[in-house]
């Protein structure tokens, strides 16, 4: 039972991080129909920016973390401005191929600067954050990861539900010509989606990096995991992405814990194939409203 709870908590915290990363992916897809193949690289970039702030700039964590997030946000803006915006209006396949190209460029830059080594962070989280109960032992980083994941999910939920900017973003995803006719600045919405996507990707990269260590290849390939996550959740549902992330996180951890660690990386993709066969729109994909 204790082992089960231990796995449950680990799975949840990893799952929140996957969910956050996938949320960014879905945002880009919803607003501009672009599948971002550079998402894993954005996660890795976030982690390395954080690493650079801690090791090179010697900043304390409480400064490095928000600064790294701000850096990711700006990076997302710049990427949209420089690479995506000139392609607005071109066939989507070009734009998607562009993200594949961006992925290699980012990876190349990171390999050039940091090489393919594994970096680990010093243990900077206070040990007091850990939770001990009977034989259950939850390390601080998992506690932090759940807390951060929950906080950001709630913040973004409120942002999309109530803020004007959030409503404009949803309106563009829903019906772009109508949004344009009301003067919604669609290009700004694209830029903002990229900025937010880079921010949440970077954040989950940072925390996953604290858990597993930072390595260009590992983090980039984690980006591939957004595919099972978003397919599971439904490609166009932000809430679904989060739930998909949690399910994949749990599946992985339970497989690793009860079956075999070598299977854990395969399970998400098995789930992906299975879900696609039985529910092609994902568990929470929008059901097309037909009556209008």
């Amino acid at each position, binding site marked *: 039972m204790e082992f089960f709870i231990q796995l449950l908590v680990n799975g949840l915290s990893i799952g929140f991080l996957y969910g956050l990363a996938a949320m960014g992916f879905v945002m880009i897809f919803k607003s501009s129909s672009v599948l971002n193949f550079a998402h894993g690289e954005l996660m890795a970039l976030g982690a390395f920016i954080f690493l650079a702030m801690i090791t090179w700039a010697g900043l304390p964590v409480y400064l490095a973390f928000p600064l790294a997030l701000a850096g990711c946000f700006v990076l997302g803006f710049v990427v949209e401005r420089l690479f995506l915006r000139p392609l607005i209006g071109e066939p989507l396949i070009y734009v998607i191929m562009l993200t594949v190209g961006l992925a290699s460029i980012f990876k190349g830059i990171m390999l050039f600067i940091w090489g393919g080594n594994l970096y680990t962070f010093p243990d900077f989280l206070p040990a007091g954050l850990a939770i001990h109960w009977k034989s259950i032992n939850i390390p601080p980083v998992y506690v932090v990861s759940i807390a951060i994941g929950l906080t950001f999910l709630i913040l973004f939920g409120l942002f999309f539900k109530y803020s*004007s900017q959030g*409503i*404009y973003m*949803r*309106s563009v995803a*829903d*019906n772009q*010509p*109508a*949004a*344009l*006719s*009301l*003067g*919604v*600045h*669609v290009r700004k919405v694209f830029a903002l989606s990229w900025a937010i996507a880079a921010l949440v990707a970077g954040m989950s990269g940072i925390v996953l990096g604290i858990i597993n260590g930072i390595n260009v290849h590992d983090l980039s390939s984690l980006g591939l995991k957004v595919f099972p996550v978003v397919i599971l959740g439904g490609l166009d549902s932000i809430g679904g992405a989060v739930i998909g992330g949690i399910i994949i996180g749990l599946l992985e951890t339970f497989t690793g814990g009860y079956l075999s660690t070598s299977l854990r990386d395969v399970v998400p993709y098995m789930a992906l194939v299975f879900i696609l066969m039985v529910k092609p729109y994902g568990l929470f994909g*929008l059901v097309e*409203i037909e*009556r*209008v």
Partner: protein
Amino acid sequence: MADGVLLQLNNISVVYSDVIQVLKGVSLSVGENHIVSLLGSNGAGKTTTLKAISGLLKTENGKVTDGDIVYRGKSIQNSPPETITRQGIIQVLEGRQPFKYLTIEENLRVGTATRWGKPYKKDLALIYDYFPPLKERRKALAGYCSGGELQMLVMGRALMAHPQLLLLDEPSLGLAPLVVMEIFRIIERINKEQGTTIILVEQNASMALKIANYGYIMENGKIVMEGSSADLKENPDIKEFYLGMGASGDAKSYRDVKSYKRRKRWL
């Protein structure tokens, strides 16, 4: 009528995808606080004219290649819609186009996009006053609303922007006669109470001429006739082809071969 003119189209041509010419020298002028109606059969170029004004042509790869569009003394042709909407011109698209997965109230809030500070509370109250059914349904997803509710929604959404010039594209499309009457009453009220100038594109010529001050008839990308609503209503050609009162008393359809020939005479 040089003074009090809000918008003027001078001999504009519009081309889609660099080759398909749709408007061939359209001129019209819209007086401040007027309702001007633009009539014509399917494919005449009414929607294209509105999109040329609102800048939405751009998104369909269309362009004003000749002539100019002057709004408040400034040329606005081929400006992006973000700029044109911010000068107070809002188009209500043909076929309604709600944000299906947003609630009625969220749909209305999108209408504040052009406004400084995005205020919406007071404006929502005003919209619900014009369109009471929207208030009851404000938490409902727009995708599940009826055609009449949707027409109110998209007009209300446009009003949230405080437009000075409102472009309405076939508001009566597919609505029951009673609902059409209600919609037209509200259009008239908006014009009177808010001082909003309106260009009204319609198939329902008799309703449109009832509330409009002035009308233009379009065929094949050209204006073929214009006049005050009173004059147009008395014109025998209009009577026959747009108001459905044939000389012999029975209604004629647009697609009559004979009507097509008669219209040719106007060109």
